[in-house]
């Protein structure tokens, strides 16, 4: 029998969100059968954290969750030592979530010292800056299927192509906008005034970052069912290096003009198209999809 690949799941400055997300992976049993977890805070593991902290073992895959603060200690051993030891022996280093990828939410508590494993926002920095073994699965949290995909590719010994931010292209070449059920409202510039409605686009008033965010949330649905934008909550752009921004429930505008426009499209082109589309009134799109009072 082929020996199981050894996985070590370490945590830095974290809320455990990515662990909780991963526990929703529908094929978790496959993961546990295919990989040996040397340590995970919740899953059955070979060693205790205390034993891991001695740095006498080695892993094939280091998964790191949370922001990286080299001074932080786990059972008396600094993250710098732990990550340095296990990362140097691992074939792959996976940053689980935006904090591990870019610094994320927790970076803001100490911007000078806290980073991601290989990036400080979008600038290469950290113990795995520019390392070819680094795979970033950004997201707050990352989608469980994204980790599942990455582990399956590694188990099958298949190459994982990554973008300039070390995110797998198969998962992050898409925008959260792709597959959004509100796309027709976006095309005709019909706004949504409230959260939680089936109708309207969330880009104009509610702060939606779908057209600027590399993520496959509307292609690989959450819990196989839905996504934030589908239920009427704006995409916060949580897979991008600038997450979290301030006032995430608001669209930043300058004299009513959106400051940011869909990625790769000039503002001149976007405003031309948007202005014309907004000139037409489409009664079907201005009504409730399902109107119980009608």
């Amino acid at each position: 029998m082929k020996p199981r690949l050894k996985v070590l799941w370490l945590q830095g400055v974290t809320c455990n969100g990515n662990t909780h997300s991963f526990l929703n992976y529908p094929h978790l049993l496959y993961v546990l059968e295919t990989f040996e977890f040397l340590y995970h805070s919740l899953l059955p593991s070979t060693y205790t954290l205390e034993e891991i902290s001695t740095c006498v073992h080695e892993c094939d895959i280091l998964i790191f969750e949370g922001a990286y603060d080299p001074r932080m200690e786990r059972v008396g051993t600094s993250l710098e030592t732990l990550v340095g030891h296990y990362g140097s022996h691992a074939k792959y280093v996976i940053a689980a979530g935006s904090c591990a990828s870019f610094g994320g939410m927790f970076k803001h508590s100490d911007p000078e010292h806290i980073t991601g494993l290989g990036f400080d926002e979008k600038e290469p920095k950290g113990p795995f800056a520019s390392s070819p073994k680094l795979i970033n699965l950004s997201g707050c949290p990352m989608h469980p299927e994204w980790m599942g995909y990455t582990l399956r590719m590694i188990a099958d010994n298949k190459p994982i192509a990554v973008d300039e931010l070390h995110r797998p292209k198969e998962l992050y070449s898409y925008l959260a906008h792709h597959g959004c059920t509100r796309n027709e409202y976006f095309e005709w510039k019909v706004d949504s005034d409230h959260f939680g409605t089936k109708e309207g686009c969330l880009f104009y008033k509610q702060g939606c970052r779908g057209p600027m965010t590399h993520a496959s949330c509307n292609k690989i649905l959450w819990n196989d069912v839905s996504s934030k934008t589908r239920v009427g909550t704006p995409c916060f752009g949580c897979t991008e290096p600038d997450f979290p921004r301030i006032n995430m429930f608001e669209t930043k505008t300058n004299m009513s003009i959106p400051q940011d426009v869909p990625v790769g499209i000039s503002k001149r082109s976007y405003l031309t198209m948007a202005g014309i589309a907004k000139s037409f009134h489409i009664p079907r799109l201005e009504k409730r999809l399902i109107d119980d009072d009608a």
Partner: protein
Amino acid sequence: MKNISEKPATTKKEDRKTSIMQTALKLFSTEGFYTTTMPAIAKTLGMSVGNFYNYFSSKDQLAKELMLYISTVLGDKLREINMTDVSVKEKVTMIVHMYFSIARERPELIEYFLRVFLSNREIFTKECTGMVCVSGFVTELMLFFDEGVQSGELKDQDFFSALGLFMGYLGGMVFLNGEEVLTKPLNEYETAIAENIYNALRKQ
């Protein structure tokens, strides 16, 4: 043998179309939209009415294309200003100068906008609704305002409040000039108007 410097047929047709639009603009803005007929425009151009309809199938279509044409001309000028590396304050001065220069050199462009487009909305409600025929110009104004707020020079406010203040002011002055009620030539108002507009829009 064909002369290689001869313009292709499509370019010649476009040139002819532009020449028709320039004549139509002058007639519409001086004689009025409803009193100017398609045969009258054709006659001024020395064209047969039948040939004229090869270029524009109806008066409404001509009216719409004229507005698109004006918006493109003004939009291109404004785009040049937007691309210039100067302060927003200087750009306000440049826009005022550009607008008044056009009003002086090609008054039919502004007159058509004021006296035909704005005054006969029934002609433009179907295919020229909203931004459709003016997007070339309005888009550039949006970019100007957006840059102004981002640079910290202009106050963040509703787009139409700023648009009305800026273009309403300029249009009003050109209208007064057309009515010959101004006591000075239009260009002599440029400095004061640019200052007024900038002071009204700037971040306090």
